[in-house]
């Protein structure tokens, strides 16, 4: 075998390994989804969506959990988005490249790797106890906001970095102030990347259980929150609760709730993707 032939075989081999790796994840995902759909799909009906939690698996529903999840998600996004984008803009556009800036950078990168339960403990002490918010939707949302801040900040910075400096220079050269340049040129061009970060962040937040349990999300809440100060539960907690019950009918409920949770994630992501595409197309220089 000549060297060239050998290289070809290695080439081919690596391609195959690559394909296997790609499909490995996909197959696992497919099996998971199939499993869940098979077990839970028949359980989903209107009653399941609008019933309150119950000890009788047939009567139990996810209304309060879905409402809690939606409340938490919307509030979390509203809190985290402006703060994170503001921080991203500061770090990328205003901060001088000195020791302080690099210290901030390292810490934000570290924050992204902190286990979520730690955020729960932080939220319990600061929001629940010191701010006196109790186990409320607002306390849970603030805690999750902290959790997803680093993700959005990093995404914002990357997106801003990707905006060509020639555009910014041109804007400045035409007499625009720094803020005018950021607001009129940089942000519109970067919004697609920023929203991608927001999508990732929301998808992470929607599945979080541990920090919310620590903050005081409950397992049995027979009413939907009507204000940010109300007590709440979220879908992962309801699912976990059902999975750990001895009766099999509850694990069917859990599967059905997982389907609903996946749907909510897809819809939220879909909305964000829609906005991203819509705004990205508009930017033309």
């Amino acid at each position, binding site marked *: 075998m000549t060297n060239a032939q050998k290289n070809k075989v290695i080439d081919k081999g690596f391609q195959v390994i690559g394909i296997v790796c790609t499909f490995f994840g996909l197959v696992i995902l497919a099996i998971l989804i199939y499993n869940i759909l098979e077990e839970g799909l028949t359980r989903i009906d209107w009653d399941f969506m609008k019933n309150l*939690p119950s*000890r009788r698996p047939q009567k139990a529903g996810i209304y309060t959990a879905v409402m809690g999840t939606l409340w938490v998600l919307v509030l979390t996004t509203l809190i985290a988005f402006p703060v994170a984008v503001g921080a991203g803009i500061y770090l990328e556009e205003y901060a001088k490249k000195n020791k302080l800036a690099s210290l901030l950078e390292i810490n934000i990168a570290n924050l992204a790797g902190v286990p979520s339960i730690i955020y729960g403990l932080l939220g319990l002490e600061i929001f629940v106890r010191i701010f006196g918010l*109790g186990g*409320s939707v607002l306390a849970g949302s603030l805690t999750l906001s902290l959790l997803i801040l680093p993700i959005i900040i990093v995404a914002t910075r990357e997106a801003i970095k990707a905006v060509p400096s020639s555009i910014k220079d041109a804007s400045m050269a035409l007499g625009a102030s720094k803020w005018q340049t950021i607001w*009129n040129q940089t942000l519109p061009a970067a919004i697609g990347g920023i929203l991608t970060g927001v999508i990732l962040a929301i998808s992470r937040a929607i599945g979080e259980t541990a920090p919310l*349990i620590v903050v005081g999300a409950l397992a049995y809440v027979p009413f939907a929150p009507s204000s940010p100060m109300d007590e709440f539960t979220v879908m992962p907690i309801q699912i976990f*609760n059902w999975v750990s019950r*001895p009766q099999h009918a509850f694990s069917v409920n859990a599967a059905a709730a997982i389907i609903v949770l996946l749907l909510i994630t897809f819809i939220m992501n879909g909305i964000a993707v829609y906005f991203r595409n819509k705004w990205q197309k*508009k930017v033309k220089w």
Partner: protein
Amino acid sequence: MSKKTSQISKIILGVAIIFGLVSCGGNTEQADKKIGEEKVLSGNIKIDGSSTVYPITEAIAEEFRAVAPEVKVTVGVSGTGGGFKKFARNETAISDASRPIKDKEKAACEENGIGYVQLEVAYDGLAVLVNPENDWVDHLTVEELKEIWEPSAQGVVMKWSQIRDGFPDEEIHLFGPGVASGTYDYFTKAINGKEGASRGDYTASEDDNVLVQGISTDKYGLGFFGLAYYEENQDKLKLVGVDGGEGVILPTQATVADGTYQPLSRPIFIYVNDKAAEREEVVAFVEFYLELVPEIAQEVGYIALPATEYAKQVEKFKAFIPKK
């Protein structure tokens, strides 16, 4: 370009408005409403604590809605210890507990001026289980269980044959609840004599269904968990009798209720805060709880106390209600 800008500012404005609106709504603690002469109970009852007691409390809260729809009962699952922490801070009215309150927790309650009453609500039995294909074990003594589970057994007792002569020379695979659960605390105290002391090389899961799965697919498996999980999976598991010195006893509704299944059966409790007991809706809820729990406990897989015991708990609570 200006179009883009206005779009972004519109969104930010919208976000700000929504945020402003939602933050205006405050928590409204409802007072008792009077409709005509009849008083309609209302208010909030916050309950937290053990996940073992949770199914009972959840079921009772669910039934209570039919009686007093205006009372908002919420139940959390912070675990017995986590529940007592909140209880001692006066954050909850009732605490679910799968063990009696500890001295440290008592001290915390006293410090904050919180009085309470302990009410037994049901029994929970711990079952020791093996695979149905296991034909050599029908009972184990408490000493044998200790030999298997004590801390010094780690890495030493690895085969069935080490436990009793005649057992096969095969590896033993152990399954049990995770160290954070009250069930683990209870088992280690009852078998090894010290709470939290056990070998670490066993398959641990907080989810008892994982343990059921593990034992039911492993011929050489052995594990323990709440009796309720055995009752739902009788076809997949084999129950092992336990000899606590007075003969082999299988855990059943009867042997747990009359206390002959020892040492692996325990009472489970609720604790009621004395300030909360000044509120009518809390009193109504606890009375409703004690009235309904014999039936509910069975339904969700626990074992009811004897009727005389419940009568005692009702008396105990009556004596506890602060006089106005």
